[in-house]
């Protein structure tokens, strides 16, 4: 039995795929030095022609990855900070994502984009603290948000093998998590949720680092409320069947979501459940960032705009 850290799990998944498939290659800044934790040791092992240190030309190397994918390779692109996804939104949402349809199915675009450290990191302020998974789900790019080391491993492997563009967000708040890995690490199918804790009274949907907050709140409330914690693992495509099955058991729904309130994952989950007419015993609740949140620098302000355990506790109580 070994303790596997989240960052190490991503690193191992990438190493295994580089070893398994010569078409896999990596583009990113400081990937040789492995500064972001995804790539340590990989350039030494696989060569600078497969693990490529790029200049600060994100728009170019993001679409170079698409070009290489059209030529049969399976590039993985690393971004040091989440807001670089805003810079390359054109290259992902408007180029890679549209390739398959616009070519009438002639070409797929198997590119994986990884952000090792998305969301708030203490003291990184407004331009480094976004967590834009809802944005990518909105445009329809396959969007992964693993919470645990084993899921990080399994989802990164699946992303690299997937024929479409996939964005994987590794939340900064989960990077330090370590897990006892007792079974073999295996691919995790894209679009499949996971129940971290079964419960009878209320379903809490939580993804990424918020899974740990949901589990903590579930534990605290255990004597009064039986909370089921459902982790979609994949934001898009979402595992609606798993959610329906959970709500059929509990009849209550709370979503905790590190997106802005307006048009975020929480909004979609609630809308989809209500729209299907799934019977709920109480009004659904969500805990999110505020509308249009820009995270202020001072730590107390930053924290005030992120979903908190206290807010989740209150939302769960309110849903009872």
């Amino acid at each position, binding site marked *: 039995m070994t303790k596997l850290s989240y960052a190490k799990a991503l690193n191992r998944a990438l190493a295994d795929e580089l070893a398994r498939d010569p078409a896999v290659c990596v583009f990113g*800044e*400081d990937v*040789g*030095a492995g*500064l972001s934790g995804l790539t340590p040791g990989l350039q030494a092992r696989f060569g600078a022609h497969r693990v490529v*240190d790029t*200049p*600060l*030309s994100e*728009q*170019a190397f993001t679409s170079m990855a698409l070009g290489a994918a059209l030529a049969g390779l399976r590039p993985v692109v690393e971004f040091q*900070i989440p*807001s670089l996804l805003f*810079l390359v939104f054109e290259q992902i949402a408007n180029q890679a994502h549209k390739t398959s349809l616009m070519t009438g199915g002639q070409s797929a675009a198997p590119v994986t984009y990884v952000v090792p450290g998305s969301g708030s*990191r*203490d*003291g*990184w*302020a*407004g*331009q*480094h603290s976004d967590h834009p998974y809802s944005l990518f789900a909105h445009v329809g790019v396959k969007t992964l948000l693993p919470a645990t080391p084993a899921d990080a491993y399994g989802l990164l492997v699946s992303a690299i093998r997937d024929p479409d563009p996939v964005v994987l967000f590794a939340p900064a708040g989960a990077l330090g998590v370590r897990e006892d890995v007792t079974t073999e690490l295996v691919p995790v199918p894209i679009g499949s949720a996971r129940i971290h804790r079964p419960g009878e009274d209320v379903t809490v949907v939580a993804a990424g680092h918020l899974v740990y907050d949901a589990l903590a709140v579930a534990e605290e409330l255990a004597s009064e409320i039986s909370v089921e914690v459902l982790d979609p693992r994949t934001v898009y495509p979402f595992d609606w069947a798993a959610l329906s099955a959970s709500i059929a058991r509990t009849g209550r729904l709370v979503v905790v979501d590190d997106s802005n*309130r*307006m048009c975020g994952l929480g909004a979609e989950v609630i809308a989809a459940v209500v729209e299907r007419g799934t019977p709920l015993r109480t009004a659904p*609740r*969500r*805990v*999110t*960032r*505020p*509308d*249009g*949140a*820009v995270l*202020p*620098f*001072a*730590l*107390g*302000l*930053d*924290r*005030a*705009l*992120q*979903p908190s355990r206290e*807010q989740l506790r*209150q*939302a769960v109580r*309110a849903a009872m």
Partner: protein
Amino acid sequence: MSAPTASPGPAELYRGMRLIRVFEETALCLVKSGEIVGGIHPYIGQEAVAVGVCAALRADDQLTSTHRGHGHVLAKGADPGRMLAELAGRENGLNRGRGGSMHAADLSLGVLGANGIVGAGAPIAAGAAWAAVRQGLDRVVATFFGDGALNQGVLLESLNLAALWRLPVLFVCENNGYATTLPVEAGVAGSVLGRAAAFGIPAEAVDGMDVEAVRTATERAVARARSGAGPSFLECRTYRFEGHHTMERRVRVNYRTAEEVESWRRRDPLERCDPGAGQRAAIDREIDQLMAEAVEFALSGAHPDPAGALDHLYADGLRPRAGVLT
């Protein structure tokens, strides 16, 4: 048109650099002690660039800065106490604790803002310069950026627009040899000056460890811009003595040799600047006193009230919905 200010002498240039140096050393201590959360990108080693450039600017000139921006903000005249308070996330900081190290701004001094995104300041500077021309002002806008920014499309687009429309922009490239761990030779094809030359922008390389050289070169560029002749480009060859970011103290990296760092330290811009007989010790004492007061001011500032976390999000006071039903 505001009157030209008298060109600062060697004592003032030294004083400006000494302030940045001690400010940064103080900030490093506060990072260590936890008063500054999130770390900083230290400017130590590059002081001659910020001070030399800003010495040639007028009070009403403007600048945009970078992630490594403390030096630029201080050289343009920001109060070190309020700057330090910003780094410590206090209500009495330049940005009321909302911006932090990478977003320090003082609009009253023409500091349009540091920036967390590499290359992002250049088009903002070009826009400010374009507006100044339209408004009939003879203001110049300087934009600082690193060698890493030379490979951002937006920087090249900005060079083109500034040249095309003869904007009074001063492009200041601080070539410190590395973009994080990437050596400039591994990042920049062709040459740094060739980038500017391709757009017909006059460009010169300057010893960025020599404050007088930077000031003199900037004066030429500023005169050109003010006369309506358009942008200029300076490549200031410099070096950062510290790691890319304070985080680098915790991770193993070996992209530079100890000998290389040492050879640049021997060219320390503060030691190469002669403030005049008997001046150095007096200025050092004065700066120590100033920084002691700055620390006192910064750390006595209030932590912002979490209830105000959404203050200033919209200029019209629009209050967005909270993250939970209340």
